[in-house]
């Protein structure tokens, strides 16, 4: 690899990425261009540019990618009915290609030689970022500090990172370490590691109530059911309760509705692409409602053989998304089949949601059915 003059770094302003800016700058003698994507993680972005500059970034990009995320990533995946290993709704998996795509765009614009990310060498995210970079910008290098032995030796734990920041005058909030790690975006929030590494630990017990952010527990959900009507067109939800909405607005509305009724909580053990099993807890309130409603409408309007064929391919599709093969010819080929299967569909679907469960109570085809 040529010694880079410019590196684009995925930056959040947290402890890890703050360390990365400085560490990358020192190691590679490079200009660091920080990039933060707003994909619905509901984090404070005000002051992030100042923070990034203070930490040593020469430039920062903060892009609102929420609508693109909902329209071009979440919705096509909903059309596929994608669920990984029968349980995981792919909330983190589907976000990484979008972030990496924007990073390589910035890298090309800024004539940067490399992009860098803070994903560890033990997870799936490193693969998702790097396969996207390979597919979209083969000429750009990727730097993964966590896979650098020196980096791991320098920072065996949080304490060393906090000390490093203090020594370098990097502003970070030295908040108490959470007993798990979280990743949040428009589609979901995930909880992993820490106390959750024990698969026998009951994450649904009242003791862990405070962990959850997007939903109440079914036990705490309203006793009375709530009706919601969704309107779909060509496999995409275009209106909720009679109000036409963009994909982003649909997600935000259904997240709120689903969360209120305790919908979308999952506690699972999954198989990572890198080979080990991992325990994770997830909240996917709006996505769960969408997937369920989408299936209801397909049951009314989709040809049997098309449905069975698409369903037989769904686990493969989900695997591709999970592994990080979004910008890959095989995923795009499957997507073409899925889009074809969704072509003839105008419909309404009506729901009753109650305490963690959703029950449909009626489906109808709108008069404009083609």
């Amino acid at each position, binding site marked *: 690899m040529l010694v880079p003059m410019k590196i684009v770094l995925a930056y959040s302003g947290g402890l890890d990425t703050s360390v990365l800016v400085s560490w990358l700058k020192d190691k590679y003698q490079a200009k660091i261009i920080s990039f933060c994507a707003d994909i619905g993680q509901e984090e404070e972005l005000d002051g992030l540019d100042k923070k990034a500059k203070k930490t040593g970034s020469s430039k920062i990009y903060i892009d609102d990618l929420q609508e693109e995320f909902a329209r071009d990533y979440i919705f096509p995946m909903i059309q596929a009915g994608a669920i990984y290993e029968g349980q995981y709704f792919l909330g983190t998996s589907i976000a990484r290609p979008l972030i990496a795509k924007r990073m390589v765009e910035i890298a090309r614009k800024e004539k940067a030689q490399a992009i860098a990310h803070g994903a560890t*060498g*033990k997870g799936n995210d*490193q693969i998702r970022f790097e396969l996207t970079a390979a597919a979209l910008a083969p000429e750009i290098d990727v730097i993964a500090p966590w896979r650098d032995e020196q980096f791991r030796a320098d920072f065996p734990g949080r304490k060393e990172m906090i000390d490093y920041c203090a020594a370098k005058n990097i502003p970070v909030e030295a908040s108490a370490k959470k007993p798990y790690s979280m990743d949040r975006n428009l589609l979901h929030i995930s909880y992993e*590691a820490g106390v959750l590494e024990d698969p026998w630990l009951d994450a649904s017990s009242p003791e862990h109530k405070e962990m959850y952010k997007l939903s109440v527990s079914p036990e705490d959900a309203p006793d009375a059911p709530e009706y919601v009507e969704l309107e779909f067109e060509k496999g995409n939800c275009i209106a909720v309760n009679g109000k036409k909405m963009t994909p982003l607005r649909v997600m935000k509305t259904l997240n709120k509705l689903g969360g209120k009724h305790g919908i979308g909580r999952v506690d699972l053990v999954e198989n990572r692409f890198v080979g*080990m*099993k991992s325990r994770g807890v997830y909240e996917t309130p709006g996505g769960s409602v969408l997937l369920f409603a989408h299936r209801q409408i397909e049951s009314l309007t989709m040809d049997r053989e098309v449905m069975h064929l698409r369903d037989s391919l769904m686990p493969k599709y989900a695997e591709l998304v999970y592994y990080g093969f979004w910008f890959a010819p095989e995923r795009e080929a499957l997507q073409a089949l899925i889009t074809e299967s969704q072509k003839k569909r105008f419909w309404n679907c009506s729901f009753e949601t109650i305490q*963690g469960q959703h029950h449909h109570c009626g489906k109808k085809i709108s008069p404009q059915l083609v």
Partner: protein
Amino acid sequence: MKLYKGNIITAGRKSPLSLYNPEIATMEADPTQAYNQDDATGFIRLNGLRLKVGAQVHQPPAPKKARKKKAKSARKKK
């Protein structure tokens, strides 16, 4: 499991035959040394190889700097 009003909620799982090993999954130090993070670099490189080759072959060529041309109609009018 916890059964509640139409919900089936996981409360935990365990087995003497469990293939889940928290020491391998954990981000803390792994006493088994079973997982070497450096291996991921090669794994990713090989998985991405066909994507890189595909991108190099199918990528649109970098746009050449276009010479400023007057529109045909504008030239004709003159």
